[in-house]
């Protein structure tokens, strides 16, 4: 029975033999237990990659008769090996490739043995197709790096090894091909292996297995052959069938990128996606990474019924106990191991476009199901392929690898690439051509929180205010009671708030009734009142806020004191200049009337002096302009240099 249905011996079997259904079922069940290995073949042009894969397919009897006869026909027409079968023609699928004898794009091949199913990414050797090689490596667990025994380690060996290491391919087979052309010489093999191990020592490979072979004649590909008796390691296929790719994605923290909101009717709201790492069970608490909102898993829904649990790799639909706001691009995670969130990241970039990468230009960044605008703010260095040295760079050309800082339009949720290939990888897309121009691997986040971890920076006023995209400021409104200070200060605050500035307005209402309720209106108390307000304003400025203070603050000295407490340029004195007669005629709270009657003692302008500023930063004469106009004028004068556009503020309100 096993003979009749064994794939590797399939072509030896002449005709279908009747098989009991149970035997077939158990065979199919065994097929399902097979493990899956995705590997990439790479190396310089003419090292024989396509020939090697053709040989693997041929020797594992996976070439059908009609394919073989087409191959024989093509070998005669385009072949480069005389009357023999040119295995490379089996793989080089595109017309241009057959004619030029090169491989310009990744070809995917499939084969299976009794032990494993394989997907092979056969990738181009020419330098100008390095981007295609990176494409192939991104989904592979193992790389077969071919070396021509006659030439040893060459530039492409180094480049491909580096890119494999960068992309997280942890297992390498160093296939030293064309060993027949150096007389099957062991010393040639040993020298290449020594050379390779020396330069690859800095790479993060878990295993490097060197195998001498001849793809053309088949030695050590599937069968050992008679020519390499000095070698006692595995054949290439033997190794591919048995190498342990230890990788348990389900042991990692839960990551569930929401791909599609599943809403067939008003009674069902599910979140469809593939568990990218970890596992999730009914009843588990989950957190939406970006919003921090949490709920519990109600059901794990699939077409085949509900499940108690789902693990990495499974495509499912989750429903939650609570109605919380979740949409495509959100990442569901476990509460105790959350991903990073930042709008600033450092990443390796593999540049894949003909036009170079320019710092500052805006691209679309796609990470998981999140899409944001992003630009490279700095190219820290590029990697020189031969020495792996870091070199200064102002741009990245096609196939170059650089380490860059990126800034995104909105915060993104991610992990470091080395920890999670799914949530740590991104692509950049040109906004105009829509071409995929780069592959990115997140190294770390540069957000304020991440900076603490990585650079141990102090969190200071500058850091806090930069996080708010503003400069800390104190806008000090001084003027008589009824002059319009609070009205104008309120308008200024509204306009700043409308353009997402972080502000706070201190005035009599929120200070005299709380912090300063023990103070009266004597000169001493007035001084203490302003001193305390000054200290509070200073703390708030230190928190990075734009603070608006609206107090009569009649004395020059106290206003000067507050100015001295703050940094140079942080304090702006705004004189709301309204003639006493006008204030008295407005008298919104009836205070002037009471003061005239002597019912209020020490009333500024009546029974207590007001010291007008000599050189205010802004002088508003309220009888000459409207409150609206005054507010715009103040923002322009005080905050215009900080990039705040009062017209925008005006538009927004």
């Amino acid at each position: 029975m096993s003979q009749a249905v064994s794939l590797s011996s399939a072509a030896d079997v002449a005709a279908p033999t009747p098989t009991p259904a149970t035997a077939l079922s158990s065979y199919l069940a065994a097929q399902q237990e097979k493990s899956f290995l995705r590997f990439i073949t790479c190396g310089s042009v003419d090292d024989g990659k396509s020939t090697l894969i053709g040989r693997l397919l041929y020797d594992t009897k996976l070439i059908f008769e009609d394919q073989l006869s087409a191959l024989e026909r093509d070998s005669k027409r385009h072949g480069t090996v005389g009357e023999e079968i040119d295995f490379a023609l089996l793989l080089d699928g595109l017309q241009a490739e057959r004619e030029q004898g090169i491989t310009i794009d990744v070809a995917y091949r499939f084969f299976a043995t009794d032990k494993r199913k394989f997907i092979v990414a056969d990738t181009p050797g020419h330098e100008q197709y390095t981007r295609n090689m990176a494409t192939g490596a991104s989904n592979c667990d193992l790389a077969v790096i071919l070396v021509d025994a006659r030439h040893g380690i060459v530039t492409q060996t180094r480049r491909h090894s580096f890119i494999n290491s960068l992309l997280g391919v942890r297992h390498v087979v160093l296939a030293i091909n064309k060993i027949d052309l150096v007389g099957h010489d062991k010393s040639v093999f040993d020298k290449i292996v020594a050379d390779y191990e020396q330069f690859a020592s800095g790479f993060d490979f878990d295993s490097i297995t060197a195998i001498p072979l001849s793809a053309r004649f088949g030695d050590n590909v599937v069968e050992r052959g008679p020519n390499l008796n000095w070698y006692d390691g595995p054949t290439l296929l033997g190794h591919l069938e048995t190498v342990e790719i230890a990788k348990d994605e389900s042991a990692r923290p839960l990551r569930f990128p929401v791909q599609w909101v599943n809403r067939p009717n008003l009674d069902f709201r599910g979140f469809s996606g593939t568990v990218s790492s970890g596992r999730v069970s009914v009843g588990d608490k989950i957190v939406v990474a970006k919003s921090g909102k949490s709920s519990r898993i109600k059901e794990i829904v699939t077409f085949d019924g509900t499940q108690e649990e789902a693990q990495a790799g499974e495509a499912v639909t989750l429903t939650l106990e609570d109605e919380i706001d979740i949409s495509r691009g959100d990442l569901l995670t476990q509460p105790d191991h959350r991903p990073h969130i930042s709008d600033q990241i450092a990443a390796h970039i593999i540049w894949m476009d003909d036009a170079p990468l320019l710092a500052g230009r805006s691209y679309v960044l796609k990470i998981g199901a999140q899409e944001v605008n992003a630009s490279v703010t700095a190219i820290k260095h590029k990697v020189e392929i031969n020495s792996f040295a870091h070199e200064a760079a102002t741009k990245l050309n096609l196939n170059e690898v650089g380490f860059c800082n990126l800034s995104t339009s909105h915060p993104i949720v991610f992990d470091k690439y080395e920890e999670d290939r799914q949530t740590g990888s991104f692509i950049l897309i040109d906004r105009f051509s829509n071409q995929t121009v780069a592959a990115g691997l997140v190294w770390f986040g540069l957000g304020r929180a991440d900076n603490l971890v990585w650079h141990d920076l102090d969190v200071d006023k500058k850091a806090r205010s930069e996080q708010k995209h503003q400069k800390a400021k104190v806008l000090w409104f001084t003027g008589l009671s009824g002059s319009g200070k609070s009205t104008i200060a309120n308008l200024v605050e509204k306009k700043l708030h409308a353009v997402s500035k972080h502000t706070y307005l201190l005035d009599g209402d929120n200070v005299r009734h709380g912090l300063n309720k023990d103070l009266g209106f004597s000169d001493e108390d007035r001084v203490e009142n302003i001193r305390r307000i000054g200290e509070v304003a200073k703390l708030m400025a230190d928190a990075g806020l734009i603070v608006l203070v609206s107090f009569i603050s009649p004395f020059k000295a106290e206003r000067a004191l507050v100015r001295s407490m703050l940094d140079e340029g942080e304090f702006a004195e705004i004189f709301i200049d309204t003639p006493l007669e006008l204030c008295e005629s407005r008298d919104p709270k009836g205070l002037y009337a009471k003061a005239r009657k002597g019912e209020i003692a020490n009333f500024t302008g009546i029974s207590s002096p007001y010291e007008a500023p000599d050189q205010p930063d802004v002088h508003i004469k309220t009888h000459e302009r409207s409150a609206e106009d005054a507010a715009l004028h103040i923002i322009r004068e005080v905050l215009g240099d900080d990039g705040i556009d009062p017209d925008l503020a005006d538009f927004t309100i």
Partner: protein
Amino acid sequence: MALARQSHLAQLEAEAIHIFREVAASFKKPVMLYSVGKDSSVMLHLARKAFYPSRIPFPLLHVNTGWKFREMIEFRDQMAKDYEFDLISHTNPDGLRDNVNPFDHGSSLYTQIMKTDALKQALNAGGYDAAFGGARRDEEKSRAKERIFSFRSDNHGWDPKNQRPELWSLYNTRIRQGESIRVFPLSNWTELDIWQYILSENIPIVPLYMAAKRPVVERDGALIMVDDQRLPLQPGEAPREKLIRFRTLGCYPLTGAVESGASSLEEIVEEMLVAKSSERSGRMIDHDDSASMEKKKREGYF
């Protein structure tokens, strides 16, 4: 037989579901090409899984040349009824008017008019920005190099030398007005995977895949089924009853049958395992030249 967790079939299934959802979430107006063959049956099954409990959120498009097997059309209509999907059937009206057929016009011109042109007409008429196809990379050499999300220009052309890099499972879904993406969720499946999956999941397929006695004539080494009286018989040619089945389904005058006694899914899979010729050999259109498929694809063929 349920799929073993983390088995290669479960992985292929999850990959395909991810692709289906990505398209539904990213494109304005997707459509699924439904050829009624076994690969289409698997696609339909995967699409139902991807969106459950929702219905499939896009229509299925069948490009009907008018020369499909009668059983395919019956099966198609039954499926649309059973699974409640929106079915659009399109036949090139120009070809219909001019009675374009495989005999008078030759398989190449016929395919161009009734399949390639018809497909473009239907895609343009629907304004679809993404179209699912059931092609697999193991089928044919130029397909081995095609992306899962394969960009098409505004005249549906494929530029094999200028394909977008496709890394990890991050698919670039951005296009301009008029351009489109062909999406191949079964890219990484092999023919054996398809049959194993049909068997494991008990997916309905057109009975023509199963062996039965059917009337055939033999032409250029291929067995052609006489599905209706429109097949012109050559002098001395007489249909004979033979126990046959089909490994691939298309237009009946262009689809070769194989002699087989495999009348159940189990037997088909078993036969697969000892097969000695690849499945496209039953399709006449690939025979002209080994680069012919790439040529057709550049022109907009699926």
